[in-house]
């Protein structure tokens, strides 16, 4: 967990009753038992996924579904990667996610800057236009947007997969909040130093708002990588499937090769596992942004 938060973690203070050492040990034991039980609930499904990916599907069922490997097929991951097309799907996902994150960063930073530092006519109306998009998630506009990209000839293309996500109200809000914390004096000083709007934005404001921008990029990455409904409808060719959509195709494999889908799911989860391991603090901050601090 986030190390900076863990410092503040505290044990609920024991009541001022005279607790015997034995009782304290029992309480501690009770908490450990609870923690282990909860961990099992969370880990068991993951354990089953790994077990079932490596075990030979029919042999596993015939063996009476034991909690151990049955006739392991260690080549299943390379089969999922090459034969089952996870490599290609990974490439599509990486490209789409990179395009969406880059574009969201640029559009959000620019718009947030305008709302935080500039005065212009219809500012309130423009802000309402941004807020209004929160009422129009992709699930609502899906049918019409599919028709739009079909009309444009963008089915099965990078544009088609990414365009509806090149800007997001959430990014504009979060980064605007970050910019509002930048002292006005700095803006004035920068003007005196001859910085234009863009110079101030990228040399002063963006570096100062780094934590907020970092949190937002985490959210941006997660939502772009995990997308399902849009890429499902914006593609009808196997070679344009993202990893999430490829998983659906794999689950329709014959039962005797179904473990290729399970191996595919492990491959699809790896980038997020890496993110969680190396960027745990940023990820926690990103996920709690807007939740705890409001």
């Amino acid at each position: 967990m986030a190390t900076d938060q863990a410092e503040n973690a505290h044990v609920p203070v024991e009541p001022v009753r005279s607790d015997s050492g034995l009782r304290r040990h029992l309480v501690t034991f009770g908490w450990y038992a609870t923690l282990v039980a909860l961990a099992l609930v969370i880990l068991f499904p993951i354990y089953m996924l790994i077990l079932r990916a490596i075990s030979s599907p029919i042999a596993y069922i015939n063996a009476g579904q034991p909690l151990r490997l049955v006739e392991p097929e260690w080549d299943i991951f390379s089969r999922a990667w090459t034969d089952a097309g996870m490599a290609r799907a990974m490439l599509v996902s990486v490209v789409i996610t990179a395009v969406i994150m880059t574009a969201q960063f640029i559009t959000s930073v620019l718009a947030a800057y305008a709302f935080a530092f500039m005065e212009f006519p219809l500012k309130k109306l423009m802000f309402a236009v941004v807020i209004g998009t929160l009422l129009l998630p992709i699930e609502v506009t899906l049918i019409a947007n599919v028709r739009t990209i079909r009309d444009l000839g963008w089915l099965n293309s990078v544009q088609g997969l990414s365009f509806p996500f090149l800007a997001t109200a959430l990014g504009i809000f979060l980064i605007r909040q970050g910019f509002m914390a930048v002292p006005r004096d700095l803006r004035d000083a920068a003007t005196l130093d001859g910085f234009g709007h863009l110079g101030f934005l990228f040399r002063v404001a963006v570096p100062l708002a780094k934590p907020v921008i970092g949190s937002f990029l985490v959210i941006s990455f997660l939502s772009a990588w995990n997308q399902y409904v849009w890429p499902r409808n914006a593609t009808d060719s196997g070679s344009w499937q993202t990893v999430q959509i490829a998983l659906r195709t794999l689950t329709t494999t014959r039962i005797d090769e179904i473990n290729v889908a399970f191996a595919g799911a492990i491959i699809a989860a790896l980038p997020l596992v890496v993110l969680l391991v190396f960027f745990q603090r940023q990820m926690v901050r990103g996920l709690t942004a807007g939740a705890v601090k409001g």
Partner: protein
Amino acid sequence: MFLLPALAVFVGFFYYPLYRLVDMAMHRENRFGRGDPPYVGTTQIIDTLTGSDFVEGVTHSALYMVYTVPLGLVLGVLLAVAANRKLKGIRAFQTVFSSTVATSVAVASVIFFTLVNPEVGYFKDVTWLSLANPDTALFSVSLSSVWQNLGLTFIIVLASLQAVPVEMEEAAALDGYGPLRHFWRITVPLISPALLFLAVVLVVHALQAYAQIELLTNGGPGTATETLLYKIADPQGIRSVGVKASMSLGLFVLTAAVAAVQYGLLSRRVHYGD
């Protein structure tokens, strides 16, 4: 101007499609989908939104919320309370408890495929988890969402618990509160803003449930697991574009209602300050 790029996207892919949905919903395709569909005004919208198919979709979406939101909140609080203490190895437990944030809905669905799939699932013979039975299938699918949401719920409740001031805890201890009374009188009120936020997030997740249904049941058996969004977004579905557009307008109203509740909660929070 700095706003232009964002506004172009918002107009092209958020507002224009809303207009287009209305337009599509007002044209009824003939059975073979040939030629330009004739204009039918609001009749198709009214027919669809009062029809049994739409009502069934809304009912299933509402059930999905009932299955996922309360259970998700209770488990999230349980995880966070259990992990918010100084014990050896607590970090390892915290990492395990947050781990489901590393799964997408599709990955979580494949994971539950290994558990509840009627042919190969580990629990395929457990009757109350059966995907083959129309009475239990939706509940069984919903458990994949409960599991997948745990990481997020845990992280947010834990962060909120850690923000509880230590003095508050000490005062409660001096008053001789036992653990249960402490939990209900001190902990729950203090983390209630986070719980409200999470309740809204989980409701939105339930409304957006799609991949888990497609991967686990394809809406079946029959139409037993077809939620509203599934009926709209299933590319292999039998519904005409006009009907789907009408249903999308229904979904828009539901989404707006949830957003209104969310806005109400957020603006109330401002008053009792942080």
